[in-house]
């Protein structure tokens, strides 16, 4: 290390310590401070999914505002039938969409006579080439993405009139923009967003559907059970990542498949000193281990794969490699949901894809329950309850696990969750896995399902029998 590098390193550390020293009194008194409900709401979103939160927050405010304004005004205009006094082209196309739904920060505009027969996605860019939004058409639905919720829109004043020059133009150089070189979206001097649907249609190219590939071990130690599947663990369409998480005693084993890029190996404590080149199915793989974690990276063909095991329980390197060698690309025919649930139930969190999925629901009493499905080769599921009892679900064999005690709240805990559907915090009640009831079964197509929650056996069975492909 040169003298200059040494000084930089020392300074880097000293600059941080100087701030800790300078603000010592402030830091000591920090715990007494109270944060606003607005901040706490944002925090819930951040902790629920830091990556998604980061992606949303990374865009400049004006971009988010323009996107939101365009989206919101489009929806409002359709709803009130007063859109587009200026743009006859847009009016002609947009009036074909007759139903609008606002779900948090995304407007879904549906209709029976859409001019867009195929799934297409168009990126909206400004004249500098900056991405400012997207319009996706899928069958009879169109989705205009936005970054802000209704409440945030009002807070940020995004609905105030915008300057006429803040126009959104088609991607430069696109040879498919024929319906006019006119802007796709124009924000008029009165603040109204005008969507030129013909221009959008003309410049659309088929969307690359990046459903993340699902990989799972087909061999696991008996103590390891599948707990969660994040079938589409990505935050935008440049990313295709799936994550299958297993419980190993009190620790975790996680298999992550990344189709869009190779993993970065730089992790704290995992350096060349604890790196070893090993072989997985005859191919070189990178194995790292320290006192906290061990990781194995290898090429899975369609995706870059990473198997991670934390240090809360022991697993040998040989076992890691054996698991890795058993990993196969899996398929599940569809995305599944529970079609019948007790009144008042709704989905709170979901992450699924054709291949595997996990959803969290809340029932009418704010008890939460989970639904997991995966190709049965992906290993046995982590289940709740005790005393396994054979049951039949739509003619297929399954198992019911009874709760340890009565489902009267005795064993429950309350916790604040982020409700993705409503975009708000919810105080929900949950049972520790060992104290709730569960049902698990495998259908004729080899997909294994598990529902775990505070329900009586007959209710669980009824829910299980209602599970069907979306």
């Amino acid at each position: 290390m040169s003298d200059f590098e040494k000084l930089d390193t020392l300074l880097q550390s000293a600059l941080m310590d100087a701030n800790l020293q300078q603000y010592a009194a402030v830091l000591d008194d920090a715990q007494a401070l109270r944060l606003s409900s607005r901040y706490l709401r944002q925090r819930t979103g951040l902790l629920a999914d830091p990556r998604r939160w980061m992606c949303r927050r990374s865009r400049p405010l004006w971009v988010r505002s323009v996107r939101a304004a365009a989206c919101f005004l489009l929806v409002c205009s359709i709803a009130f039938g007063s859109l587009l006094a200026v743009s006859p082209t847009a009016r002609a196309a947009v009036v074909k969409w007759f139903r609008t739904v606002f779900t948090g920060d995304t407007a879904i505009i549906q209709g029976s006579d859409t001019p867009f027969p195929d799934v297409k996605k168009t990126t909206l860019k400004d004249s500098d080439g900056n991405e400012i939004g997207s319009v996706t058409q899928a069958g009879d639905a169109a989705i205009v993405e936005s970054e802000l919720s209704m409440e945030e829109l009002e807070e940020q004043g995004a609905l105030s009139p915008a300057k006429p020059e803040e126009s959104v133009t088609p991607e430069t150089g696109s040879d498919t923009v024929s319906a006019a070189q006119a802007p796709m979206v124009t924000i008029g001097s009165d603040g109204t967003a005008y969507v030129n649907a013909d221009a959008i249609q003309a410049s659309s190219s088929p969307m690359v559907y990046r459903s993340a590939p699902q990989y799972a071990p087909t061999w696991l130690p008996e103590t390891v059970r599948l707990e969660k599947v994040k079938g589409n663990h990505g935050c935008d369409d440049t990313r295709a990542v799936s994550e299958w998480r297993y419980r190993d005693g009190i620790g975790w084993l996680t298999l992550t498949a990344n189709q869009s890029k190779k993993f970065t190996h730089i992790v704290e404590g995992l350096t060349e000193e604890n790196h070893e080149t090993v072989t997985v199915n005859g191919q070189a793989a990178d194995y790292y281990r320290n006192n906290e974690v061990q990781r194995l990276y290898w090429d899975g063909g369609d995706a870059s794969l990473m198997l991670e095991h934390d240090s809360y329980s022991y697993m040998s390197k040989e076992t890691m490699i054996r698991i890795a060698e058993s990993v196969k690309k899996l398929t599940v025919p569809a995305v599944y949901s529970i079609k019948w649930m007790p009144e008042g139930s709704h989905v709170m969190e979901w992450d699924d894809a054709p291949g595997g999925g996990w959803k969290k629901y809340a029932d009418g009493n704010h008890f939460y329950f989970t639904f997991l499905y995966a190709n049965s080769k992906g290993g046995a599921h982590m289940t709740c309850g005790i005393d396994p009892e054979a049951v039949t679900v739509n003619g297929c064999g399954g198992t019911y696990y009874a709760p340890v005690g009565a489902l009267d709240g005795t064993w429950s805990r309350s916790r604040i969750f982020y409700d993705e559907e409503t975009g708000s915090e919810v105080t929900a009640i949950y049972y520790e896995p060992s104290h709730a009831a569960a049902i698990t079964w495998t259908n004729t197509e080899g997909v294994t399902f598990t529902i775990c929650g505070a329900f009586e056996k007959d209710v669980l069975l009824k829910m299980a029998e209602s599970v069907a492909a979306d």
Partner: protein
Amino acid sequence: MLGIYLSALESEADRQKFQKLYEAYEKKVYAVALKILENQTQAEDAAQQTWLRLLKNWERVSALSWEKAGGYAVTAAKNAALDMLRGQAHTAAFPEDWEPPAPEDREGEYHYIVQLVCALPENYRRILELKLVEERSNREIARAMGLHESTVASRILRGKAMLRRQLEKEGYTDV
């Protein structure tokens, strides 16, 4: 552009580590921002910006020790708050000279460097923080501080030179 951030929090261990840091430093980050901005709403916005910066630089933050990660969070909070102050008459000059403290009873070299940094004129200190701690480019620093890129480069060199000279003057020859 977003693609470069996406290596953050790829594993469960990373996510747990981030959550642990967040829970430990959430109010501290806010407290530092509040001290500078003296406005709750602005301080909360600065706190959000701080966590955004930590997430964007997660590979680097996660490679730090626990104590240093806290120092990074506090430094980022201070600079996020100062970024928000920009435009509010925040145009302090870069003094050509300064009066650094003398070392106390041959204190250790590192401890003395920390004291020197504390005494460094604020604009030099901030520019070094942005460069060496947050590892921002000269262009980003220029934008944040309202300076020309070439000015940023010369101030970084000058700030380091001021510290080095003082260390040499006091007989700390290792750096």
